[in-house]
């Protein structure tokens, strides 16, 4: 039984890594210099959040941090700022979905969006404090809006293609917030 669950969680880990990997590769494609007026939404955030709400015990923190650091390195962003901030948001969401049970879709949208807005403002604040040249505000807010709008699509993909769904009843028993899912 234990073995079976182990295999199951490994499948989820591999799926998460793959989807993040594919997202990064698409963002890296060298064809959008002209079309860059279309902003990339923060897809990795959306996938991670959707995952944590649906399967909170099948996504270890280490994995999230790993993916975020890699994306910081590859996308030439300030190293470590966004991972640090977003980890707090992710862990809050994980705690929320483990302890308070399933969210309604509307609640989920509001929660995810407000956390993203909060994190974005925190990031802008940190960039101002540390005097990092940040992109124009207009672009940040455009990207923010775009990210918020696209979340339902990400949920759909997670649910129907990647089969990351809410737990059915008894599944949650035995995998709470413990050492297992570090």
């Amino acid at each position, binding site marked *: 039984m234990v073995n079976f669950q182990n295999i199951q969680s490994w499948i989820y880990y591999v799926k998460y890594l793959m989807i993040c990997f594919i997202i990064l590769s698409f963002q890296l494609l060298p064809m959008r210099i002209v079309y860059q007026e279309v902003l990339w939404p923060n897809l990795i955030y959306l996938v991670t959040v959707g995952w944590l709400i649906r399967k909170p015990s099948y996504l270890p923190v280490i994995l999230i941090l790993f993916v975020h650091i890699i994306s910081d390195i590859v996308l030439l962003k300030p190293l470590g700022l966004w991972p640090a901030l977003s980890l707090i948001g992710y862990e809050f969401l994980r705690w929320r979905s483990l302890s308070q049970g399933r969210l309604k879709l509307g609640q989920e949208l509001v929660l995810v969006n407000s956390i993203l807005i909060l994190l974005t403002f925190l990031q802008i604040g940190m960039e101002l404090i540390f005097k990092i040249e940040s992109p124009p505000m207009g672009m940040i807010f455009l990207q923010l809006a775009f990210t918020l709008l696209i979340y339902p699509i990400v949920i759909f993909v997670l649910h129907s293609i990647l089969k990351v769904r809410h737990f059915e009843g008894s599944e949650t028993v035995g995998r709470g917030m*413990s050492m297992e899912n570090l």
Partner: protein
Amino acid sequence: MNERKSKDEYGRTIRLIFIVSLVFFSLFSFILWKIDNSRAERVRMAALDKLMPNFEWVLGPLRGLSSISEGIGSYSNLVKENRELRLKLQKMRDWREAAIRLEEENSQLLDLNNVRVNPSLKYITGLVLSDSGSSFRRSLLLNIGAFDGINDGWAVVDSSGLVGRIFGVGEKLSRVVLIIDSSSRIPVKIEPSGKKALLVGDNSLRPPIEIVENKEMIRSGDRVVTSGDGNVFPSDVLVGHVIRDADQRLRVKLVANYGRLKFLKVIKTHTVDPSDVLGEVITNTVTD
């Protein structure tokens, strides 16, 4: 029952400590990046050297697909393009005659004046691997690096004009910051008036130029070339042509074809190593 509960509690505390330490780890790496930026960027380039081959199996097919779709797009334009090209060719023939005549005249005059011409610029050609993946940073990765003798700060051009400069060199790849990136500042010269100006990247494909004085001397259509100030760039590399936008602000229409950046040339230039300069200054003050 009680024992199990306390065990759970214990696990939760450990977990919390673990998460907090991860957050601190990220913050710590961020602060390191901020304090010692150049070293952190070098570490990043080294990491990219290792990482990029892993992306290749996804990037390769995707790149192929995008070039196919580009190909289909260009076929549909073929007839129109053909007609335009024929028209242009007509004009070009006249220009060619004129150019040959002028070149002859020019070389005769140079010879008369005993001018020593710049040694021809040497360059290395690289293939564009990927772009920065964010709309905020306009940069590219090239598949040539320190191994091929690339240095920081060198100018990067495509077949027609300036594209950017090298910023960050790895073993097998290097990063090019485009001149349209918002951190880019390039000293330029406007011909024929010879005014010096600064080309300021603002993330748009028509970057503005900043000039201190005598704006009236500049006309739309004037050529913009690098001035070579600051010993970073070679001089007289074509950048683009001056245009005026709706607010009468001077901008540059770039000649480099940003829609199709595939092969780029890196121009070898002799740069002054800042660390050497620093050493000189220190010894001077000591001896003084």
